[in-house]
């Protein structure tokens, strides 16, 4: 079926004052009604700018945009009646309840009387928020906020729905529900433009616009891009604990342009016209299996954007830690109660040196609470946590000397320059004269040199994360705590990040990480799945996947497994 495109973008450029390169650079494309139009690209590619241009919130420097024949700048009033826009931060009033937020948007869009009643009923059941109408928006979990943001944008039925990274910081279950909702809207003939950093979402879109530096790199069905990679994606299995070392060797080879850990296997992408390497070339054990696999959109994305030059991580050259194989982090019956609410209940596990342990769970399940108790930021109501043999309850400061911590939110000094931040953290970790030496190596490894005199707050997101990791590891901690380290960061930066983490783990550092990205979870040696304050299962990514397999889904993804395990717990709860 050929559809007349709802949105026509013709030679559009957008420059911002003081920026050397345009955010959008001579872009021409179309978006059609009745489908989800994916919008992907690395950080700073111009995704948000393009969405704001379509919402009439920015005026193009040149070129024209027409949405259902309307000019977003000169006909903004009419345009806003047919366009619904959900900004990255949802646009909710946190001091108002769910119903008050909805009512506000309905009044603004003048949806009244019986029509409003019907629409509210629809939206509340659609978003499953009917039980929470009296709850303040600020007290909702991330996933619920996002659904409410969507409901507010949809109080009157639009022709075009613009979603700017709606799934950042949201658990896989909420992400799937959001996708289901968008698909239903599309069935009603609405055009959806969905910008995302999740490439599995992009793969499911009918059409994808891949932006880089404001220009289109690909515009069409994602399969077209993926097809270019036919025969170039490999799965290397049977590696066990050697997978990180093998990945390192693989990435050093010119024939391999991308590689990630997937449970006990590696996923590698070959450069064009290259032959698959043999096990011995990868320095893999002889029993390792190397088989071709179906390429994914993410493989194509990285291949098209060109993975960054593979640098040896500065962490690899640090001396091996002595104590690997001993338990370095131990949780014994950790419990946290806030009033009558139990946020975490009887959580126990032990993590060995040189292991990556992932804490996963839906928003609000208690994983952040558990995480904070482990690194000594929150005092447990019962149970105890120890790091490097020190009890966090009794010898917190000794324990902390062994800990590196990278917070979920940007927590460096935004008004200090990159150099000043490094010096400051070197100072508080007591590095003394070594600070200069250590920070020089960090600056080189993270390519921070061009930004040394920039204020940390003004850095692009990916560089903020790099600086945060550099600061958290200046003192060479034996245990590293990472709270959603790559939330909102593009896949290229995420790979680089994990390159460093793998290098650290290789020399015996213990890593505890929380994440909503399943490909990040694949790097973990073991995963603890936390739901409703309890650890419902623990095991390697492959074990979790195997546990969720059934005749219908013989080889589930980690995300499938995550959802199946949570649902299974719901059923168990309902039965008892």
């Amino acid at each position, binding site marked *: 079926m050929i559809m007349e495109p709802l949105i026509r973008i013709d030679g559009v450029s957008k420059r911002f004052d003081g920026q050397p390169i345009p955010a959008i650079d001579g872009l021409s494309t179309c978006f059609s009604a009745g489908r989800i139009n994916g919008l992907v690209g690395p950080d700073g590619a111009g995704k948000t700018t393009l969405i704001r241009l379509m919402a009439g919130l920015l005026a193009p420097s040149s070129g024209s945009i027409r949405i259902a024949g309307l000019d977003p700048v000169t006909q903004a009033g009419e345009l806003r009646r047919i366009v619904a*826009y959900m900004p990255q931060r949802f646009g909710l009033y946190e001091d108002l309840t769910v119903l008050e937020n909805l009512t506000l948007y309905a009044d*603004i869009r003048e949806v009244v009387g019986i029509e409003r009643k019907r629409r509210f009923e629809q939206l509340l059941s659609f978003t499953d928020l009917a039980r929470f109408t009296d709850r303040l928006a600020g007290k909702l979990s991330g996933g619920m906020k996002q659904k409410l943001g969507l409901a507010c944008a949809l109080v009157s039925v639009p022709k075009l729905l613009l979603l700017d990274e709606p799934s950042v910081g949201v658990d896989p279950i909420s992400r799937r529900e959001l996708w289901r909702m968008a698909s239903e809207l599309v069935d009603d003939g609405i055009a959806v433009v969905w910008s995302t950093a999740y490439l599995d979402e992009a793969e499911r879109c009918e059409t994808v616009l891949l932006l880089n530096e404001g220009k289109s790199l690909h515009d069409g069905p994602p399969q077209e891009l993926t097809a270019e990679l036919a025969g170039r994606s490999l799965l290397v299995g049977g590696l066990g604990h050697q997978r990180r070392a093998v990945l390192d060797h693989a990435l050093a080879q010119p024939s391999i342009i991308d590689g990630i850990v997937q449970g006990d296997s590696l996923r590698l992408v070959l450069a064009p016209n290259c032959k698959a390497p043999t096990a011995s070339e990868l320095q893999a054990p002889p029993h390792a299996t190397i088989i071709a696999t179906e390429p994914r959109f993410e493989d194509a994305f990285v291949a098209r954007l060109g993975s960054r030059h593979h640098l040896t991580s500065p962490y690899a050259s640090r001396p091996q830690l002595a104590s690997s194989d001993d338990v370095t982090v131990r949780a014994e019956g950790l419990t946290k109660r806030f009033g009558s609410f139990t946020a975490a209940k009887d959580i126990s596990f032990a993590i060995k040196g040189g292991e990556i342990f992932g804490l996963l769970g839906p928003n609000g399940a208690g994983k952040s609470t558990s995480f904070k108790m482990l690194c000594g930021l929150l005092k447990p109501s019962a149970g105890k946590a120890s790091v490097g043999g020190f009890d966090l309850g009794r010898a917190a400061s000794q324990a902390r000397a062994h800990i590196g911590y990278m917070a979920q939110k940007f927590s460096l000094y935004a008004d200090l320059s990159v150099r000043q931040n490094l010096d400051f953290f070197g100072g508080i970790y007591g590095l003394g004269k070594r600070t200069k030496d250590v920070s020089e190596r960090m600056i080189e490894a993270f390519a921070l040199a061009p930004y040394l005199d920039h204020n940390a707050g003004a850095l692009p997101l990916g560089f903020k994360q790099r600086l945060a990791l550099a600061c958290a590891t200046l003192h060479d901690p034996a245990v590293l705590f990472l709270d959603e380290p790559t939330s909102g960061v593009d896949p290229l930066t995420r790979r680089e990040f994990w390159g460093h983490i793998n290098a650290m783990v290789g020399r015996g550092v213990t890593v505890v990480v929380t994440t909503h990205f399943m490909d990040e979870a694949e790097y973990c040696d073991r995963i603890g799945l936390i739901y409703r304050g309890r650890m419902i299962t623990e095991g390697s990514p492959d074990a979790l996947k195997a546990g969720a397999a059934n005749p219908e889904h013989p080889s589930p993804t980690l995300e499938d497994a995550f959802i199946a395990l949570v649902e299974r717990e719901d059923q168990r709860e309902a039965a008892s």
Partner: protein
Amino acid sequence: MRLRPLFALIRKESLQILRDPSSLLIAVVLPLILLFLFGYGVSFDLRDSPVCVVVEQSSQPAESLAASFQASPFFKAHREATTAHCKDQLVSGSINGMVVIPADFAARLNGGDPAPVQILVDGSDPNTAGLMQNYLSGTVLVWQTIIADMQGLSSQGRIAVTSRVWYNPAKQSRLFLLPGLVAVIMTLIGTMLTSLVVSREWERGTMEAMMATPLSVPQLLLGKLIPYYLLGMAAMAATTVIAIWLFGVPLRGSIWALAVVTSIFLLTTLGQGLLISTLAKNQFVATQAALFSAFLPAFLLSGLVYEIASMPPPIQWFTRIVSARYYVPSLQTLFLADDEPGVLIPHCLSMLAIAAVMFAIVIRKTPRRLDD
């Protein structure tokens, strides 16, 4: 203009004011603290000021003069026989001034020497020093007049001055400070709170969401103006009631005139609040800007605390663009005198001119898009 979206915005804003502790802090708690601080604490009156009266030699007139210092409500006087001890007290600041009645006081007085009394005041605080000097010498003059009358010396050849203080006969500073304080409270709500809530909407991203809806710029602006105008009027009413009932400030003018003048002043402060928030899109900068451009001028440059006429000419000139400078004297007139059109109308016209300029800039500068 469509009214339903506007009412929705007003309702939203009202709910936020009621639920957000920082709004209540600025709109209710801070005004109350200021009111009680100025009502009970700050005073420019002289009351029980510690002084020392040195009577070097007792005599009937010396005792009589000393007694009139000790009986005065303005001083807390204690007697000494020599100056030595008193000088130390003056240096240490435990007394504000001293009166020395010399040993030959009676003789000099009878000899026709006019008032051979020495008055010393602590000049480290010029305001207090001036007051002390006037009150101390005033007390001597009054005593002299009374003595002259008693002795039957005719007041022939002397001019008898009968002074009367109008509007505030007891010269209580609270009676002019409290009405003036309404100006400061209106500034807190109109400028500080308004710029804070608008910049918060920018910070939290709700402004972006609002701009993507069919709301027009006038609707968005009125949606902020009306609730904070109403809040300002409520605060003015509450302050007035407290000033009248608790502190005994009279309201000699009419409530209607007070409401009209206050409304005009609120327009200037709200305009300034909106102007700040269109320029500063974060709460910290907005608060600082409101503090320096509105709150402090309302205190220092409005004539509330410092007399404008005694400021250096450039600063006097500058006060002309501080709207509180017109509101404070209007309030003092309304509370202590009457609806005096000769005072109120020029002040109101000046404030309207300032408000017009503010709003002209606000309407021009309010962004219709994020890149405006």
